[in-house]
Each structure stands twice: as structure tokens, then as C-alpha cells.
């Protein structure tokens, strides 16, 4: 009897395992468990590199060229004589290019103020799970320089080339909360070399907030708002240009393969940081609203190695 027990015991210890498919799967899971801890970046927090007027957390990928055409029509409260603003339009054409997956650059030309702009945008931190340093948020930095080329208002006085320049610096802090919801904050600083009046500031501080709710796989609803903060660096100067309002925009992103169409309503006329953050004159709630759209078409210039 003892022998028998011993035998059964030994057999049960050394009995060849019968590998059914499920056991094979378990074996595979065990083997690949470590691989699962690989860093996994949050992707597609927004559909394109612009939220509405300003930048979103997204970059174009390395080697990708993004051609952007943006329009803002006149104000819808101008009535049927102006076909609710459609008779007027300002436009910005721009080219964005991804130098790497973290760094992109872009240039643009707006009809508004005959303005040229150029920017650089760098991903400092990327939202990720797993790996050695998971992060709940993404952070990017964008710096833009804008050059106004309208004829001098007063050609008789001494005008400096540098008076045409203004700059903006933004941090973008974003989180993709779920497939459907992404939010971002945009602390911003704008500097204009020339102010219109002595009492008007050269330096502006603003906090932007925005987000999107996905309505379907290819359609999302976006909101973007910039609040100019009451911070003045020089005594006696106001913190904002007299008569300006905070920029508000609501719109939809529609994605169709290589294109993204953004349709929106905003009280801002300009499409560069200096113009929409500090020079928005329309009152959104009095109907000073521009209908507008951005069209983005991407071209893969440099194929990445597979």
C-alpha cells in the first residue's frame, strides 16, 4: 500500500502535462507578461495639431507635411445684406512639417493684417502608461513669431522694422481622459514690440482651456477659450487692449482619411496667437460671431522605416 501511494505521488509529480490549446495560451501569456509592461503612449488626443484657433497637444508625425487652409468669414449678425458674413473672408494658408515625432515647425501667411508667422512646437512630456516613467499628462511648448506687413499707419514718423514683430509662447498641458474626452490647458504669454497707445500693454498673459468630446469615430465637438489675465508688468498700463474681448470658439472636427475638416464659430478674426488672444473685438454673446473652417491635408513626405 505504501508503495502504491509513493508510486502515485511520484507519477503525479512527474506526469507529463497535457498541453491543450488553453494551456499553450497560458504559457504564452506567462512568457509575454513582461512585454506587456512596455510603454504605451496615448495617441490621437485630438484629431489635428490645431484645436480651433490655437494649437492642440498634437504634432504632425516625423516626415509628414500638413497643408492647412483656414477661413474666417464675416460676422453672422451682419444680416442678409452681407449673407450673414459670407461676403467677407480672411484666410490663413500654412505648412506644418514634423522634423521628428517630438518637434514640428510651421509657417503661415494670413490676409488679416497681411501677417506672416512661423512657429516651433516641441513635445516635452507624453502621456503614457507602463514602462519606467508613466505619465498622466502630455506637455508641449509652442513659440510663434508673427510679422505684420501692413503699410505703416503713419509713414512720416520714424518706423522700425522690429515694430512689426510680436511673439507668443505657450505651454500646452493635455490629458486624454478616455476615448471620448480630451482636455487641455494653455498658459500663454504674448509680447508685441509696438503697442498702439502708451497706456496699452506690450505684454499679455492669458490662460486658455479647451477640449473635445467625440461624437462618433470621425466626428468630435471642440471648445476653445482664452482668458486674458489681469496681470500688468508696467504700472499705469492696462492688462489688455481697450475694447477687446476674450476669444471663444466652438466647432466640430470631421475626419475623412487624409483630411480633417474643422467647422466652427468664433468671435476672433485672426488665426495667429497674437491676434486671437489679444485682439479679438467681437462679443460672442451679441452675435459677433464668425463662421469659419480649417482644412488640413497631410502628405507623407518621408516614409518611416517599418
Amino acid at each position, binding site marked *: 500500500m505504501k*508503495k502504491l501511494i509513493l508510486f502515485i505521488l511520484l507519477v503525479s509529480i*512527474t506526469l*507529463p502535462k497535457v498541453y491543450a490549446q488553453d494551456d499553450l*495560451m497560458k504559457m504564452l501569456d506567462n*512568457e509575454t507578461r513582461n512585454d506587456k509592461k512596455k510603454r504605451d503612449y496615448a495617441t490621437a488626443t485630438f484629431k489635428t495639431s490645431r484645436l480651433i484657433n490655437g494649437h492642440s497637444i498634437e504634432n504632425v508625425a516625423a*516626415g*509628414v507635411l500638413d497643408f492647412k487652409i483656414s477661413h474666417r468669414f464675416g460676422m453672422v449678425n451682419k444680416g442678409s445684406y452681407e449673407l450673414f458674413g459670407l461676403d467677407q473672408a480672411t484666410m490663413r494658408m500654412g505648412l506644418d512639417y514634423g522634423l521628428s515625432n517630438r518637434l514640428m515647425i510651421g509657417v503661415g501667411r494670413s490676409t488679416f493684417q497681411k501677417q506672416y508667422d512661423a512657429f516651433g512646437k516641441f513635445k516635452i512630456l507624453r502621456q503614457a502608461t507602463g514602462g519606467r516613467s508613466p505619465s498622466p499628462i502630455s506637455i508641449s511648448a509652442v513659440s510663434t513669431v508673427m510679422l505684420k506687413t501692413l503699410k505703416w499707419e503713419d509713414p512720416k514718423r520714424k518706423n522700425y522694422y522690429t515694430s512689426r514683430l510680436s511673439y507668443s509662447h505657450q505651454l500646452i498641458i493635455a490629458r486624454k481622459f478616455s476615448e471620448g474626452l480630451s482636455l487641455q490647458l494653455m498658459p500663454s504669454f504674448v509680447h508685441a514690440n509696438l503697442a498702439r497707445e502708451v497706456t496699452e500693454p506690450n505684454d499679455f498673459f492669458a490662460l486658455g482651456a479647451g477640449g473635445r468630446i467625440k461624437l462618433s469615430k470621425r466626428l468630435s465637438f471642440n471648445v476653445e477659450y482664452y482668458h486674458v489675465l489681469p496681470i500688468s508688468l508696467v504700472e499705469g498700463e492696462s492688462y489688455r487692449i481697450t475694447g477687446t474681448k476674450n476669444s471663444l470658439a466652438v466647432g466640430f472636427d470631421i*475626419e475623412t482619411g487624409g483630411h480633417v475638416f474643422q467647422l466652427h464659430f468664433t468671435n476672433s478674426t485672426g488665426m495667429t496667437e497674437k491676434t486671437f488672444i489679444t485682439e479679438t473685438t467681437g462679443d460672442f454673446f451679441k452675435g459677433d460671431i464668425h463662421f469659419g473652417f480649417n482644412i488640413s491635408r497631410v502628405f507623407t513626405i518621408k516614409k518611416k522605416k517599418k
Partner: protein
Amino acid sequence: MKKVFFGFLFCMLVSFADAQTIYMTKTGKVSFSSQAKSPEKVEADNNEVSSVFNSQSGEMVFAILVKSFHFASALMEEHFNENYAESNKYPKSTFKGKINNLSAVNFSKDGAYPVNIEGDLTFHGVTKKVISTGSLTIKAGKINAFSKFQLKLKDFKVSIPSLVADKISEEIDIVVECNYELKK
């Protein structure tokens, strides 16, 4: 006591022999392409496929991280993950199958052997029976497995909007290639 000892030895041997039949890879390749007549070809590779193969029973399983499919175009890859494969919702694709004509393969002799494979493929949360042909090539104790087959997107509830219907065909070509080594 002798009997017990031999019994024990026998079992040891069997279990040892059994261990010799498990083959594995973590760098298997799965690629797919769409035959649609579009200038931009939709194709992607995944070189991080893990698979285990039991040469005694003919059973084989695959586990594939959907996010590891890489496209030449970054935007295509984003759309694949976001809109079609929904890889956040369904991160893993698996295949559990079996070689039906295992007796035709002689694992101790080098050579190429045609095989028939049958099993359940799970992708996009849908499990479907797949039957395919392929080959096993035995060389110096290593096994190369190759198979090519077609899947219908419809079967896996992947819907193509009419707007891009001319860019993606309903049938997708799948190519699988694994170089198995004995599992240690």
C-alpha cells in the same frame, strides 16, 4: 521498490520528451495588405508576434498586440488604431489552432512540409473559425512556419465608411511567418 523506481524513471522520460515538443517565438511576423486599387496601399507589419507550437499535438497559439502593427504612414497607423481596429478597446488579437495533417510532417528530418491549419481567430472582439494552408520547414531542429490567407473585414465587424471604400478592399490578405525555436 524497483517497480516504483522504473515507473518514476519512465515518467521522467516522458515528461522530458514532452518538453522537447514545445516550440516558441516572440518575433513572429504577421503582415496584412488590402488589394484595393488605391495609390496609397494599405499595408502593415507586426514583427512582435509571439506564438507557441506543440509539435506533438500540432496545436499552435498566437498572441498579437494590435498596436504593434506598423504602417509606412503615421496617419494611417493612427486611423487603423482609432477607427478600425479600435486597439484601445481590443488590444490583443489571438489565434488558437491546430495542424490537421500532423502525420505528414517528420520533425526529425529536414524539409518543407505542406500543412492544413484550422482554428479560431479573435480580432476586434470577434472570434471566427479560420481554415488555411501553409508550410512547415524543418531545418536543424528549428521550425519555420508560413501561411497566407484572406479575411473579410465584415466578418470581424470592421466597418469601412463609404467615403474611403475605394481605398480599402473588403478582403484583406494576411501573411504569417514564424521561426520557432525549442522552448527552454
